[in-house]
């Protein structure tokens, strides 16, 4: 019961000598997007854990996010991250015309802004520790810190990757490999902005409200 009519055997094509093979760039991008979705699941699980550990009893009479979150400080981090993502996007638009300098400017700006984000985040964590809020304080604090820092770790490795790409493009220009990697990095970087919206709204802001 085939849904397709089989061709006439005497005229059927059995071997395809003109098959050019798969499109390397789009195969790579698709696989990388699948990886990013699995990364999204990682965050979803972390959010599930955070949800369970964000009740008032999870903080064990210690400080809650209402005590230690500063919304406008974190909003500055948001600005830095979103600008970094925008800069990267601008860099990718420069690639459309083969503009190497435009791409490099975008990458450098994205890198610097990302470093600013990380710097703000590290300062925030050290400030928390100084006020006696570490992962050892309570379940709620553990969840808060681990979730936000897993995101920060992603940013860290992304920044490393940006550096590597700057070196590769400087040395090799726009080859199939380097362009493919730039596309993957674009998806990765833009996903970080999306994840950050969740983190910012549902961890920082909502925590502050409770």
């Amino acid at each position, binding site marked *: 019961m085939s849904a397709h009519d089989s061709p006439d*055997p005497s005229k059927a094509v059995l071997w395809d000598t003109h098959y050019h093979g798969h499109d390397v760039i789009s195969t790579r991008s698709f696989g990388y997007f699948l990886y990013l979705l699995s990364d999204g699941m990682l965050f979803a699980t972390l959010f599930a854990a955070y949800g369970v*550990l964000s009740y008032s009893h999870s903080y064990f009479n210690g400080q809650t996010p209402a005590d230690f979150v500063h919304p406008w400080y974190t909003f500055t981090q948001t600005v830095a991250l979103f600008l970094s993502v925008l800069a990267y996007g601008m860099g990718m638009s420069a690639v459309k015309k083969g503009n190497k300098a435009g791409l490099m400017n975008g990458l450098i700006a994205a890198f610097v802004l990302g470093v600013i984000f990380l710097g703000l985040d590290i300062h925030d964590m050290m400030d928390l520790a100084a006020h006696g809020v570490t992962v050892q304080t309570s379940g709620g604090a553990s969840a808060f810190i681990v979730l936000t820092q897993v995101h920060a770790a992603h940013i860290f490795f992304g920044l490393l990757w940006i550096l590597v790409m700057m070196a590769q493009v400087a040395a090799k220009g726009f080859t199939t490999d380097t362009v493919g990697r730039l596309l993957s990095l674009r998806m990765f970087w833009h996903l970080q902005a999306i994840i950050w919206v969740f983190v910012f709204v549902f961890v920082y802001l909502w925590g502050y409200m409770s």
Partner: protein
Amino acid sequence: MLVQVPGGWNPLLGRLAIDQIPYTNPILAPLFVAVVIGAVIILGLITYYHKWGYLWKEWLTTVDHKKLGVMYIILGLVMLFRGFIDGLMIRTQQVWANGPQSSGVFGAVHGYLTPFHFGQVYSAHGLIMILLAATPLLVGFMNIIVPLQVGARDMAYPYLNALGLWITAAAVALIMISLFVGDFAHNGWFGYAPIFELQYSPGVGVDYWIWTLELTALGTTLGGINLIATIVKMRAPGMTWFRLPIFTWASLSANIIALTSFPALQVALFLVACDRYLGSHFFTAGFGGNLMLYTNLFWIWGHPEVYFVILPAFGMMSEIFPAFSEKPLFGYITMVAASFAIAGVSWLVWLHHFFTMGAGPDVNSFFSVATMLVGIPTGVKVFNWAFTMYRGRITYTAAMLWAIGALFLLLVGGLTGMMLAIPAINYMVHNSVFVIAHFHSMLLVIVYAIFGSVLFWFPKVFGFKLDEFWAKTMFWLFSAGSVLVFVPMYMLGFMGQTRRLDYVFNTAWHPYLVTEEIGIAVYCLSVAAFFVLLYVSIRDRVKNRVGQDAWGTSRSLEWLTHSPVPFYNFAVTPHVNARDELAWRRHNGINEAQPTQYVDIHMPNNTGVAIYIGALTFVLGFALTWRVWWLCLLSLVAIIVLMIVRSWRGDPGYIITAAELEKMEREAMQRQQQVEGHLPHHGGQAVPGGAMAYEGQKVSPLGTPPSSGGDHH
């Protein structure tokens, strides 16, 4: 920030110390000696026959999906053996330590294993069997078969494929080394809070467990990405979605499950690691932690995982049944739909692993109904297989026997699963051996499917068939063992035996335990039969050589390649014209048609980077376990550096010219003629006895004797 660990720590060696090596343990010390002797022999033989170069060039640095698949399967079989030994140890301990009068040796009050050691044995048994035996075996088959079935030359990411294998091998190395350096976890294969916390498991066992699981999860996720991308992006021209072979569909649905669920495992374990290394309070009993959270997060992965392992097994059965019933698979579209229905619903059932933990009747009811829903598509599959066989021309090869056995096991396991889905029953038998018997029945479905697939596809990969007599002997012994071990276990579950008992207090159960022990002995015989099978098959390999269509009634695209499959798979990419392409071509008499024209093809290069990174992940896992921080940092940096170096160098690959291809193809066709020269090939009709010469049948030469007949030793 880091916790103080009991038992001392120093900056150079972390928690490593000479007393972590169990040289006084009466079981492990002799085992270690045996392992060392075995290793010396193997390494010595390789050196003596000057095979290191061959090994490096052909196997350790390969990116060829077939070789990687074979290595996965070898890894899986070795670990299946180790897991079996662990199972043997469990059974023996339980039958020995039965009742207060039972004797004790080796420091145990009853039996021969102390409770602490017994805990490690059953934890290792579970972990190894599911993640380091069944999963690599299935992944190995998917690796070998799927690219061939879609008409591709390799997977979408050959280098990533190799990386996945070596990371899995690193996980295997980590759990194996836990035998001799330190302990393994004793918290069961899936772990419980708070026993895995540092306070209650101060040793390194749980850390080994965490990092072994994390590494396997990483390897499987990478493999999942690879398979999905291959199936979506690399199908041959004409291979539309509904012409895809059913095993490929099964692999697709299974790997979608893998991709979506393994991150939950990684998080669950990572949070345990945070508790143990950083002193966080995710799963502690106090300070705002939540014990049930661990169980929840783990089983969010855990349930989809079991469907990840069973769907490829179903796919394998769906390939074997049609081939040996000489009929197309009944209800192809419903089979595909059922696979995806199972994958989808499997995401909604995970709480049935902890009905008793207190979520309440509303939540329990939801998950119970969802669990029962999964039975419907599974039932569809069972009926489809039955209807495939109905009015087919059935040949009871050993592979077919394994598949039919799997079907019976599925009925038993599936029905008991439906029983367990009902919370009222579940509350009675939760954590009893009834549950163990249920899931072993299901896992045996997978094992049966794997053995059937080994027999079915071995001729394609290696060019000769396995000995039928010994394969059937192994089947019957294995099935007898299964019945003897697990039927009493269902009964004992109802009678109240809980799982994981190192001392079984009720002597009324003794006859059942003895029966189970006899069953294990029968399993040992079947393992012996397996080794005899290998020996006999390799000895008779020239006699049992096969051509392209090894069984004469195979149906899907992979059977179009030569046997053994050349490293480039298809010389020219095939154009697909129908579902069950080979069957269609054979029916129209064109299955022997070869390409008239060859073109240059592009192949990836071998690379040592994958195995170096794999080795480094082992070092990283080991260093994390023993908290040797400088080594952690060093290996992590080394891994990143290697990744950057590899990325920098890239892989331009190499070209095989059309002329070289033509030469290799001609040689392959000559070999094919030698093998099948005495069997006339009529296009579609099955020649009595001719097209299915196996079982050592003496086929009289119907035409001129083969030009180079006889043995070529």
